[in-house]
């Protein structure tokens, strides 16, 4: 790729990363407001609950939605792991093109597998009458956007044009990230953590015993 173009597009990608980071931080701070101090007397440990919630509490044995919908759970897992690794690969491409290209070459097959999972989830959303009723256009946009990212990583050649398209796509995705549904990438942690802390404070989490004993 032309060195000037390479630097420019990487700079724009950096700017869009900064936009995403700032916009998401502002959103988290806004949703937090001035915070809510809990004046009740604690009965448990919030941090132990957070640990539980992000570890054992995510396992199918403890999470009914995962247990009863094993296929969707697995597809979701594959999609999210795929997207995360591709985003890291693209981040590397911005930071250090030579390393990034090598990493992205390795990620082709995982990206294709994740893309397949994404397509399955997209079809599920489009076919299920319940999900269709629940979905907004943004739900389709979000999954299409992530599938697009995975497709870029799976199928574009590792030449300079391929790199350029990948970086342009990466940039656009980062611009969209804080605006629509994809912001759950951050709010997943904020929301789950907040809920778990509250349950921990009250001594609900971690559970004393498995609920089926």
């Amino acid at each position, binding site marked *: 790729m032309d060195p000037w173009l390479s630097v420019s597009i990487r700079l724009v990608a950096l700017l869009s990363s900064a936009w995403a980071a700032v916009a998401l931080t502002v*959103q988290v701070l*806004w*949703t*937090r*407001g*001035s*915070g*809510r101090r*809990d*004046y*009740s*007397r604690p*009965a*448990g440990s919030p941090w132990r609950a957070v640990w539980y*919630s992000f570890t054992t*509490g*995510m396992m199918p044995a403890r*999470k*009914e*939605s*995962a247990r*009863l*919908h094993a296929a*969707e*759970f697995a597809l*979701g897992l594959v999609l999210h792991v795929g997207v995360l690794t591709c985003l890291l690969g693209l981040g590397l491409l911005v930071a250090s093109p030579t390393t990034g290209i090598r990493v992205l070459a390795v990620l082709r097959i995982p990206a294709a597998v994740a893309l397949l999972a994404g397509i399955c989830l997209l079809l599920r959303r489009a076919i*299920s*009458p*319940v*999900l269709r*009723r*629940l979905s*907004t*256009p*943004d*739900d389709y*946009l979000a999954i299409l956007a992530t599938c697009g990212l995975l497709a870029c990583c799976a199928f574009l050649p590792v030449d300079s044009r391929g790199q350029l398209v990948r970086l342009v796509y990466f940039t656009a995705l980062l611009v969209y990230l804080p*605006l*629509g*549904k994809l*912001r*759950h990438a951050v*709010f*997943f942690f*904020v*929301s*789950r953590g*907040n*809920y*778990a802390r509250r349950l921990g404070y*009250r*001594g*609900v*989490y971690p*559970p*004393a*015993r498995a*609920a*089926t*004993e």
Partner: protein
Amino acid sequence: MPADDKTPADIATAAREALVRVVRGAAAYHLNACVRCGLCGESCHIYRADPTPENLPAAKAAKVASHYRRYCTLVGRYLPRLVGARDFTSAALEELVEAVYGRCTGCGRCGLHCSIGLDVAAIIRAGRHVLASIGMVPDGLQRTVSNQLETGNQMAIPRDELLSTAEWLSEDLKLERGDEAARVYVDQPGQRILYLVNPREVKFFPLSLMAAAGVFHAAGERWTMSSKFYDVTNYGFYSGDDDAARELTRRVMEEARALGVQEVILSECGHGFRSFRWEGPNWLGQEYPLPVRSVLELLEEYLAAGRIKVDPAKNSARVTLHDPCNLVRWGGVSEPQRRVLHQVVQDFVEMTPNRQDNFCCGGGGGMLSMSEYGDRRVASGATKAEQIRATGASIVATPCHNCADQLLELSKRYKLGVEIQAVVELVYSALL
């Protein structure tokens, strides 16, 4: 319904202001997190009974989220259709009433199993708060809140009626225990505990109050009720009216101070426990000066300290335990009642699932006060009914009088043939 002198624009403005006020620091986290994967359906007793799209937890949360997006997000403001953002129109508000009051008890089970792990019930509560702030609480529920504010108790029981009930219960208790000191104490200053009860105990289930009085007597407890503020329930919590909830809490804590007690003990009531123990200090914006506990914790303490002696053979029938959502999933009290039951009944059997994972009986969230949703309420108890049937128990111990009402109805509708008893009643029956 909203006050007639308000224009739709005034109502929308008031609703928007209430929404922005209530979501920050709480529901907003969760409103941004739902991915509408639709995997939460089976975790909700209402959806299980009637799997229509409207009953999906995420669909109920989405009603609140549509307004959140409209007023609190950039894209919702400028491209509302892209994110399903909606204004607070009259039609949208009516739909919101149906979703947050009519299709959800706020039991929280869906949140525990949500693929993201977000608190759907917090979103629903935010929706209720918005509707309460514009006067759109369903009539039956609002009447209960008004009763509490105007008369001091949700059933508007006159003071004389409480006193005469306390009197005849005391007479019976004296005969049963053979001791003058065995009585229902009312308005006695300087006692150790102030005991709050569900007014249903005064009106419909006096044996429950008598059992508590009998156990307190056996334990040598110094206790009293207040004839002014003895109601453990807090329907402001259910309706979403935080001002009412705060006032009801304030009165009781003020009364506890005036009577000079050292502790407030809450009788068996799920949302009453949650309201007084967990939400109350936050409504008041300050720590309580004295401890507030469930009577279940006190019963366990009596047994552990040997202050009461029991014989489980006196309760020989098979007993199972219902876990009220607000006491267990939201309140963290799951083990004291089990440790107590293991000592006072001979044949105790768990429902599956149980503890924090229990299914709501369908009577929570103020459902019992909203007759318009009565059929749905009873239908939504089907999962609980099947859980009970599978245990083969003939008694369901239920540490909540709201749940007790619903379970009595479920027993009739689903022909379960079970008796519903408070834990304290089983303790009383087992006393030596």
